[in-house]
């Protein structure tokens, strides 16, 4: 299975707002053989905060990258968040989806919470965290 680039809500919102760093990260991931994925919780959160939901929906349709929430992930969220003492359910799902496939990376607008969750998962330094 190819390594993933998991987008968090900040990364998705940056794409919706036409942030050039976000687009550069996206195309770099594709060129380097990463499969871009977006957990469903991230999609929900980004659509809730989107200035241009239609634009966001168009981007999501083109990516065709949505990952449904599965029990193997959802049942681990609460424990990870409690160990980290920070981060949202969505952040925890992003981290767990990255850990599910070796070699994966995360593109985020909020590296601090992602790093804290990775540390709580015992994987700090093993998953590249890129900032939009």
């Amino acid at each position, binding site marked *: *299975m*190819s390594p993933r680039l998991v987008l968090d809500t900040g990364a998705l919102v940056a794409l919706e707002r*036409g942030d*050039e*760093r976000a*687009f*550069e*990260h*996206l*195309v*770099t*991931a*594709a*060129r*380097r*053989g990463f*499969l*871009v994925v977006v957990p469903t919780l991230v999609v929900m959160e980004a659509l809730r905060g989107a200035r241009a939901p239609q634009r966001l929906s168009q*981007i999501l349709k*083109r*990516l*065709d*990258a949505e990952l449904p929430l599965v029990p193997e992930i959802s049942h681990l969220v609460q424990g990870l968040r409690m160990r980290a003492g920070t981060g949202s359910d969505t952040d925890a799902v992003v981290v767990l989806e990255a850990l599910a496939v070796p070699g994966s*990376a995360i593109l985020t607008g909020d590296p601090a919470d992602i790093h804290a969750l990775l540390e709580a998962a015992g994987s700090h*330094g093993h998953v*590249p*965290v*890129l*900032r939009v």
Partner: protein
Amino acid sequence: MAVLKKSVAFDEAVGREALERAGERGFSRFVNEAVAQRLQAIRIVELYEEFEAERGPVSEATRRAVSAEWDAATAPR
């Protein structure tokens, strides 16, 4: 999920290695994932080109910075 069945010819070495790695039962899934990823990469490049056509080219500074960040993030540890 609906499926489309096609007969596909591989270069022998490619086909053999794919079969060895995926096994007979996992072969279709293995090939499907590879094609899906390739298609996504094509769509992302198209999206990027449309973004540049709308907003102008991504600056050289951003290209260099992001490339360096990926190099650093994915370097063997």
